[in-house]
């Protein structure tokens, strides 16, 4: 579904991805963790070319993201992306937020788009917030609208960039719950997060990144109980003890 082959990325002089090799299967849930600045956000931002890569090959659903002639607009419609800061459109209601792309990109009629929007917002538990503006919603609710906005495009892949990092602790679970359900339904997901409980419970594999390299990748039981690399052990000891 997603394949990185020796992917390199620079921000000017800064080498942020140093030869990433990674394959994600359909319906797989991959959690990516690592210290801040390790390149994990950049990794998933490359998948829909929010960041272009400079070297290597990146293939998503048979499309070659590394080739500049690839029609990214079409591919992006197949990939939902959830941001740490939600990035909802503040001038639109929840329903308008989730129906914009289906109507403009997929050319779905307003009626059908709204039906589908209502269904998806209900699915994330916001059936009663359709006509609220983002400013009237809590952080957790905003993030669920953001997930719904991705889902409304009926994507094949959902990418999550620290979806709970900007949330108050009591709101984290409502967002994770939506993500758990998605995983159960067989969505292909890459989740950048420090929620190790979620990783342990939901993911098929956990990857650890540091300094732009993929240090270790393993199924959660192995990753947490028998980490191979010293750096992974150190990282895990830091985030699991508090």
């Amino acid at each position, binding site marked *: 579904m997603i394949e990185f082959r020796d992917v390199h990325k620079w921000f000017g002089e800064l080498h942020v991805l140093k030869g990433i090799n990674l394959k994600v299967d359909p319906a797989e849930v991959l959690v990516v963790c690592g210290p801040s600045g390790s390149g994990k956000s950049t990794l998933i931002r490359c998948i*829909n070319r*929010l960041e272009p890569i400079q070297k290597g090959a990146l293939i998503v659903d048979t499309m070659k993201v590394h080739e500049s002639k690839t029609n990214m*607009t*079409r591919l*992006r*419609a197949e*990939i*939902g*992306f959830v*941001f740490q*800061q*939600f*990035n*909802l*459109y*503040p*001038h639109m209601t929840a329903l308008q937020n989730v129906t*914009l*792309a289906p109507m*403009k*990109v997929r050319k779905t009629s307003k009626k059908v788009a709204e039906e589908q929007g209502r269904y998806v917002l209900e699915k994330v538990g916001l059936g009663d917030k359709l006509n609220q*503006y*983002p*400013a009237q919603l809590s952080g957790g609710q*905003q993030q669920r609208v*953001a997930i719904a*906005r*991705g889902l409304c*495009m009926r994507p094949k892949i959902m990418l999550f960039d620290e979806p709970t990092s900007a949330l108050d602790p009591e709101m984290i679970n409502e967002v994770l719950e939506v993500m758990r359900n998605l995983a159960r339904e067989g969505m292909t997901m890459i989740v950048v997060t420090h929620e190790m409980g979620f990783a342990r419970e939901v993911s098929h594999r956990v990857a650890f990144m540091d300094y732009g390299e993929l240090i270790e990748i393993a199924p959660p039981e192995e990753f947490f109980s028998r980490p191979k690399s010293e750096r992974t052990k150190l990282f895990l000891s830091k985030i699991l003890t508090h």
Partner: protein
Amino acid sequence: MWSFYIEQLIHSLPFFLKGLWMTIAVSGLSLLAGTVIGFIWGILRASRSRFVKPLIGAWVDVVRGTPFLVQVFIIFFLLPEFGIQLEAFPAAVIALSNLAACFICEIVAAGIQAVPAGQREAATSTGLNGVQQLRYVILPQSMRIILPPLVGQFVLLIKDSSVVSAIGVMDVTRVGWLTVQRVPQGLLVFGLVAVLYFVICYPLIRISNSLEKRMSAGVTQNKM
């Protein structure tokens, strides 16, 4: 004595109203054209285009860095040297439209750039193309930022239009010049000229102020 001058002034009132109409025509046409061009330039200036962006930037700098009077003279007196003959009126409209476009371009570009990058990223990630992003996501948010200074800029440009009297356009200012030669009461004559400008500008100032209040209230309310 005063009553005599005032009587004379009342006599020339139709003349002043004609001048007022000319000021409105020059400013109105220029603001219309300047706003349209200014938005196009502003959008391009805020874009990532490598060629057009610096070109517009350079042009805006040149126009902002030279006196408007000189620009008017160049268009009216210098272009004929290159075979482009213009009447005073179109020359004035072209000069003022260009000035308006340059200022409005800066306002629009700043408004677009003030929208958080995450908005564009979110729109990009859902598959909206560049034009759709601009139309549905970026511009509606930019408008809150653009509108108050835009209307304020209109006021400045209407006042700047008085400069075109220098090439013989019969606007209110020029009417004042001509009248003061018959009615040697500068205070009275130009007092009337000022009042006429104020009558056009004041409503716009009020609009700008109320937009400022409404938009900034909206922004804080809609903060995420």
